[in-house]
């Protein structure tokens, strides 16, 4: 594949994270994920393989979406080709492939939409860039709608607020409906529906893992911090991404949540039925699958009789929970209405800090010079706390409380302008490693800058996908794979635990 040409730089000069590359048309056309086999399509209600009359069916689906979602129509009708979005996508910046410009990605769908749903497109298609849905167009859809991590950075800069994430979700939904689904996302959704979580962890494995963590924390700290599973009548149901029970540095973050709950003096539990916070139904634009996944959380909360719902560190899970949980699986009138429904673990920890109930020994993180990667679905798709921008300030407040050395990356690469890790939106799969690596380039360059200027050694994140993606791509950019840490890993390192036994069994933390 053609490579982006590096411009001349003076020796030692670091590249600008947002440097616009030379165009390399079509260089990523061959990048596409494995197509889902019938065994992964059918449980989700999709045809097993490409249906015979797929063109007709795809247009029918497009008509359905057009009727159902006002946003779909507005986004496809409103673009005036102003160009503001063209250099805002990390996959464009990393590859130089013009089809990774957000407007070009939208146009893949828009050209077919115009052909079938606008007067000019029906009669004068050549005049308005309208096209029939050919095999070639479908190929482009499959390649380039899987080179969008639905991070919504481009929508921040669009004067009309056109959200390319929704366009690529619609594109994937149409492809699923004609039998051309993506293996990675659809296999995972199937596991949530049959076992209860993305990883396919059965109760027995979950129990063994949690018991192992209890032992480990007791050994290390001398404090009996609990990791309860399916405990009826607990105050709080913790819903974390299942990677928190499997991968690193995710597990280190989970240990942090447990220590915070211990200090809060609340009772809490994990559910083996509604284990998963992630909701890949969103990635493929499938309302039905998104709802099925969300309903498992509702059922778990009801069955266990909890009063509160707290979500762990997972980016798109928080968007799905914060923005959609109530309409997908509400009303949650059976929960304690005095607390946010749902609440984020960072809000929980921050509230305790405000109430003066957490003590941190920052010297435990003295070896770390830290920066923070805002995860896109939290930065742009939701909020934390009750003040505007809380999603930016709360995690930073937690990190600064636990570590003496904190330095933000360049201002145009963080907060609402944050850059995707490169693996979001259903792209975190091995066969897409090239686009993942290239898409991570702007973030890695921003990290290189703070590493150079401030000696930053570690980057914290609060999303399971970001953590897994960075573990993989950091070494490709000269960093240590363990340079990525969980926000609650920093909390876990520094938190001072009370040694009173049974402290975790009192009801109500009063952290509000």
């Amino acid at each position, binding site marked *: 594949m053609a490579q982006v040409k590096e411009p001349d730089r003076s020796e030692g000069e670091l590249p600008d994270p947002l440097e616009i590359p030379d165009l390399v048309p079509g260089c990523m056309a061959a990048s596409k994920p494995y197509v889902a086999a019938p065994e992964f399509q059918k449980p989700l209600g999709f045809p097993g393989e490409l249906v015979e009359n797929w063109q007709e069916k795809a247009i029918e689906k497009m008509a359905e979406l057009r009727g159902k979602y006002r946003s779909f129509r507005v986004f496809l009708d409103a673009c005036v080709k102003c160009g503001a979005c063209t250099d805002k996508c990390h996959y464009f910046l990393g590859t130089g492939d013009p089809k990774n410009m957000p407007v070009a990605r939208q146009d893949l769908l828009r050209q077919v939409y115009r052909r079938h749903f606008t007067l000019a497109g029906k009669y004068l298609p050549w005049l308005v860039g309208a096209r029939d849905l050919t095999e070639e167009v479908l190929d482009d859809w499959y390649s380039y709608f899987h080179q969008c991590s639905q991070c919504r950075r481009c929508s921040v800069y669009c004067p009309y607020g056109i959200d390319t994430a929704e366009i690529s979700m619609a594109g994937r939904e149409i492809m699923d409906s004609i039998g051309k689904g993506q293996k990675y996302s659809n296999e995972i959704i199937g596991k949530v529906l049959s076992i209860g979580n993305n990883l396919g962890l*059965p109760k027995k494995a979950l129990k063994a893992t949690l018991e192992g963590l209890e032992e480990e924390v007791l050994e290390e700290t001398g404090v009996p911090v609990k990791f309860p599973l399916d405990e009826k009548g607990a105050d709080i149901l913790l819903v974390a*991404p299942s990677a928190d029970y499997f991968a690193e540095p995710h597990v280190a973050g989970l240990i942090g949540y447990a220590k915070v709950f211990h200090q809060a003096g609340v009772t809490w539990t994990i559910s083996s039925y509604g284990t998963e916070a992630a909701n890949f139904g969103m990635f493929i634009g499938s309302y039905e699958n998104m709802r099925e996944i969300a309903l498992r959380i509702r059922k778990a909360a009801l069955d266990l009789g909890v009063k509160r719902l707290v979500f762990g560190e997972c980016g798109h899970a928080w968007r799905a929970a914060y923005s959609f949980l109530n309409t997908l699986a509400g009303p949650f009138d059976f929960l304690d209405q005095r607390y946010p429904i749902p609440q984020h673990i960072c809000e929980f920890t921050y509230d305790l800090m405000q109430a003066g109930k957490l003590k941190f020994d920052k010297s435990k993180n003295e070896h770390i010079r830290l920066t923070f990667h805002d995860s896109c679905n939290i930065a742009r798709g939701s909020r934390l706390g009750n003040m505007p921008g809380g999603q930016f300030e709360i995690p930073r407040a937690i990190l600064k409380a636990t570590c003496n050395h904190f330095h933000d990356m360049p201002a145009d690469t963080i907060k609402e302008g944050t850059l995707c890790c490169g693996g979001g939106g259903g792209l975190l799969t091995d066969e897409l490693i090239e686009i993942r690596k290239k898409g991570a380039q702007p973030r890695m360059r921003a990290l290189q800058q703070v590493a150079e200027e401030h000696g930053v050694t570690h980057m914290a994140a609060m999303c399971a996908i970001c953590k897994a993606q960075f573990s993989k791509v950091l070494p490709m950019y000269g960093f240590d794979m363990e340079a990525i840490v969980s926000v609650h890993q920093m909390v876990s390192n520094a938190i001072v635990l009370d040694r009173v036994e049974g402290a975790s069994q009192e009801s109500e933390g009063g952290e509000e």
Partner: protein
Amino acid sequence: MDAYVLDSHTYEHDEEGYLKNLADWNKELAQLIAKDEKIELTPEHWEVVNFLRDYYEEYQVAPAIRILVKAMKKTFGPEKGDQKYLYQLFPYGPAKQACKIAGLPKPTGCV
């Protein structure tokens, strides 16, 4: 469907080289899969592979990295009981690459 061929037997695998039928696995096949992955199996590799298979049989899923690290530490001592050591053995990641060689399904999700 793609397949490994060993002594005139064929063993189906998926797009990424993971065995379709877990019952197909045997030690010679593991050597063959490892060769495809450019890994020469040493006793240390076998320790991981065997641990993964035992764990899978008991729990129907691969173990968390932390559990694997702990098991290695117990058997080979602290200097071989960390994540980095496992990555030396299996450069593409102990969870995925070692599972492939052990004939187990690929761990899915945000990992």
